[in-house]
């Protein structure tokens, strides 16, 4: 019995015989065994905080309070470093074990506002601190907070790329409506982190704590998802769908058959869902194993290394159209969340081009999907964006950031909701 269960389901188990290029939607669920005590892993936390002039006042106060609360919630074997950035980066707390919390907390009072925003300095210095103490079995999470546009966006993305290699996930927090959410989304996606949009400074406190809580639950580490596709089956796209959506960039292994992607650390208290969109070749009526899915992982807290679970994905080619018509609504519901995300991006693009009616129509489609799935928060923010669009012919920067952040946060589909 493995610690992690693997469930692979297709949207349709049957496909019409002899039809080429049929699309198949594959849902891969990685489910931790809830009866197992997974223990805990030390966190290697890097706080990287914007201290440019626009952060003055409530924002920086809340950021300081949030950092203090986070430090206080860490365990003695966790590591923490605190870096601020404006024109330059300043390491306020070099990477250290979270033992002398009072000293760490008091150094937070040294945070001062300075003009300029060069986020890459902060990211580089923050990452350097994290690398100093990183040991093989820590959860590496950088929390990056900014409220403005930065110079050197390309450099920020390059650093995110490097940190993805170093297995540091960056959770990017944007506050207000002046920052570039596209940059923060890219940074988060590249490192398999999460993007958050904060409307008010008070949210920093709550969201930082939540993020550290989620990070500390991510004890299943170095998870790699591999697909062994049989001849003529092609992978078109691959995503992490739940708990948040990210487009994955799988690589083809040397033998050309196996496609793998590293998906970072997974939580012990929640299932993680992945989605693969496949193209199937034409085949006569028969039972075909189109793919084998392998998930390999470590659980350092249980001294488990390189454990692999696998599952077959089987399709029945048939002439019976009634069988082909049957869909698994759980799979469809998960993929529909990706679709809602794509629709929102498309609507934002249309709005920028001035196609208000097209954008409104696309948003209403997205809203219908999120409503059906029961994503209340996202439905509400789409509603607000649509309202703005109808009244003013445009969506405010604030609303764009809210729907974008919301569309990345998917919801769990309960089977009971579907019956």
């Amino acid at each position, binding site marked *: 019995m493995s610690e992690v269960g693997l469930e692979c389901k297709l949207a349709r188990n049957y496909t019409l015989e002899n039809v080429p290029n049929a699309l198949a939607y594959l849902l891969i669920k990685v489910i931790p065994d809830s009866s197992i005590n997974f223990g805990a892993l030390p966190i290697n936390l890097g706080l990287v905080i914007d201290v440019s002039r626009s952060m003055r006042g409530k924002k920086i106060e809340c950021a300081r309070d949030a950092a203090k609360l986070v430090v206080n919630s860490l365990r003695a074997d966790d590591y923490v470093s605190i870096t601020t950035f404006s024109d330059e980066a300043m390491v306020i707390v070099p990477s250290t074990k979270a033992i002398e919390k009072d000293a760490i907390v008091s150094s937070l009072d040294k945070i001062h506002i300075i003009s300029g925003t060069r986020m890459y300095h902060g990211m580089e210095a923050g990452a350097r601190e994290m690398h100093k103490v990183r040991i093989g079995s820590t959860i590496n999470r950088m929390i990056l907070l900014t409220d403005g546009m930065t110079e050197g966006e390309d450099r920020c993305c390059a650093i995110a790329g490097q940190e993805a290699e170093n297995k540091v996930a960056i959770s990017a927090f944007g506050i207000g409506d002046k920052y570039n959410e596209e940059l923060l989304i890219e940074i988060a996606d590249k490192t398999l982190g999460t993007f958050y949009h904060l409307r008010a400074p008070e949210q920093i406190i709550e969201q930082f704590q939540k993020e550290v809580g989620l990070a500390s639950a991510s004890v299943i580490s170095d998870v790699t998802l591999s697909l062994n596709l049989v001849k003529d089956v092609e992978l078109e796209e691959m995503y992490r769908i739940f708990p948040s959506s990210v487009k994955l960039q799988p690589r083809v292994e040397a033998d050309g058959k196996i496609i793998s992607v590293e998906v970072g650390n997974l939580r012990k208290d929640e299932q993680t869902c992945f989605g693969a969109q496949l193209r199937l070749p034409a085949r006569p009526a028969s039972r075909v194993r189109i793919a084998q899915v392998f998930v390999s992982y470590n659980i350092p807290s249980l001294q488990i290394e390189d454990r692999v679970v696998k599952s077959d994905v089987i399709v029945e080619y048939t002439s019976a159209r009634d069988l082909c018509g*049957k869909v698994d609504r759980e799979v469809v519901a998960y993929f529909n969340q990706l679709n809602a995300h794509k629709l929102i991006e498309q609507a934002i693009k249309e709005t920028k081009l001035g196609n208000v009616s*097209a954008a409104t129509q696309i948003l209403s489609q997205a809203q219908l999907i999120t409503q059906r799935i029961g994503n209340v928060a996202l439905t509400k923010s789409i509603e607000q964006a649509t309202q703005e669009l109808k009244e003013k012919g445009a969506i405010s920067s604030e609303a764009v950031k809210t729907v974008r952040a919301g569309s990345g946060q998917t919801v769990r589909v309960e089977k009971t909701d579907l019956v």
Partner: protein
Amino acid sequence: MKCPHCSFEAPEKEQFCPNCGASFLVTESPQKTAALSALPSGTILNSKYHIEAILTGNLVNVYRASAQGEQNSFVIEEASIVRKKKLNIITRAIETLGHIKPWRPDAKKTEEKVAEAIADHFLPLREKFELLSSLNSSDFQRAHEYFVIGNTEYLVLENQTGKNMLDIVSEDLLSEDAAIDIAIQLCQCADRIHRAGYVHLNIEPGNICLLDGHVRLFNFERAIKLGGRRHEHLTAEGYSAPELLSDNAVIDARADIYSIGAVLHWMISRQNIPLAGASILRVLRSVSAPALARIIMSCLAHDPDQRFKTAGELREKLATYQLMQKRNFHFDTACLTDLGMIRQNNEDACLVLEISRSTDSGKNSYGLYLVADGMGGEQAGEVASSKAVEVISSAVLENLITPPDKLQSPFELVRNSIEKANSEIYNMARKSPQLSTMGTTLTLGFRVNNELYLGHVGDSRAYLIRDGIIKQLTHDHSVVAGLLKAGLITPEEARQHPDRGKIFRCLGSSPNVAIDTYREVGDEEKLDLQHGDSLVFCTDGLTAHVSDEEILAEVEKSNGACEACQRLIWLANERGGTDNISVIVAKSKNIKR
């Protein structure tokens, strides 16, 4: 172990081929998966039908069969009438289909529940027979016979005839016009099904056939009563309305409207509607006009309330769009007149006008094509021909800006304007001795969108070129034409005949004139133009030297109307240019549709 599918050598323990994925277990034949034990091939059913093969086996077995004396084959569906002893078999079959709701055979009213479960998958055979019989039309799959043998019911259906849409579109993309024609017919089919109180729920290319351009709809197994609910979620990827995946939604006609929109989009673009729904950009890119994209998007709205309410409403929209597209003509037009090689003055007059007018009610395009060949010596000929052109063009232009309630019909406008021109020329001739013998031929084409109205007096001509064939749209009012019509001379002799210039009808010679319209050649008031048509109007200075076939060839090989006019005049002059030559060429531009 060698894979029977790809010949890959696989280790013994493998259940599936590691290379191609084929199962090494013997695939179960439809007979084995059938809920009912299937009839073997060769069985004679109901003393009439010869079972040839089982096509699929599940809750309902489907056979291909033939009957003596019948040319076409049949499809026979076989289902068990629910009896207690059949219960277990059916329960198993339902389980294989993965029925979502827990179902216990020991519950009360078991038989009804089983019947409900079957109805969740299929329209019961008797109900299907009754529905197809009531529809009783060549638009739908024919139901031949329903009968019961013991505990088993049978429905004999027509096998698919005609060409399947999947095959048609896989060979070549349909033109937008042809795709809309099919969608309009699908709307008519859907409308009839809805009026019968059902929704088809399975309108997808595989279930549509074309027989001599006529749409036929098959496979009614997923049909349900209007306003019904289905607990099983059977959908066709890319064609089924999203509400079919929802338990709470009541299914009505709008689900079929979604499917028709998806089929129309597929016929034009070969693209299915993805799970995320249609995007306006994607649809816009695949059609020729935003108006059609809007219609398709209205069909494909996620929310049924945003779709067309009835198939009739969708049909109306498509028909109106199609009509507007047919009317939307763009002509490349040119007009040229030449003295010829002999004459000292040019008595011909010609004029071309192309006008577009956009109003709230839509865009209209008009074309006016006039050639006149004056006669009467001295300068009188050109006075008559110019006057005819002036009077008629003024009348037509005036009519275009007249309030709609006082508008003359195009047919009347053509006749009235020619009569007006005749009486003005006649009065001028009476008042002035120098002009007393003047007169003119006149050939007039007035185009309103795709409709051409003709007015004609004399021996100038109008031609239509369509699909590589040239057709004269006017009869010459000349002596020679009479001889030719009587078979006394050949066309070649007519062109050389000494009396070839003599006409018996012209404008200006009498107070009243008999005017030919399109009725004289086509039995109708107007000619319906098609995309790709060309029109040629000319005076006899051209036709005296250039045959109809040569006109056709010159027009077809020319790059544009202007070049065609130049080529024709050059050819007439090369052969003598005995008279003034006037030519109008109007070529309909081919629009990608």
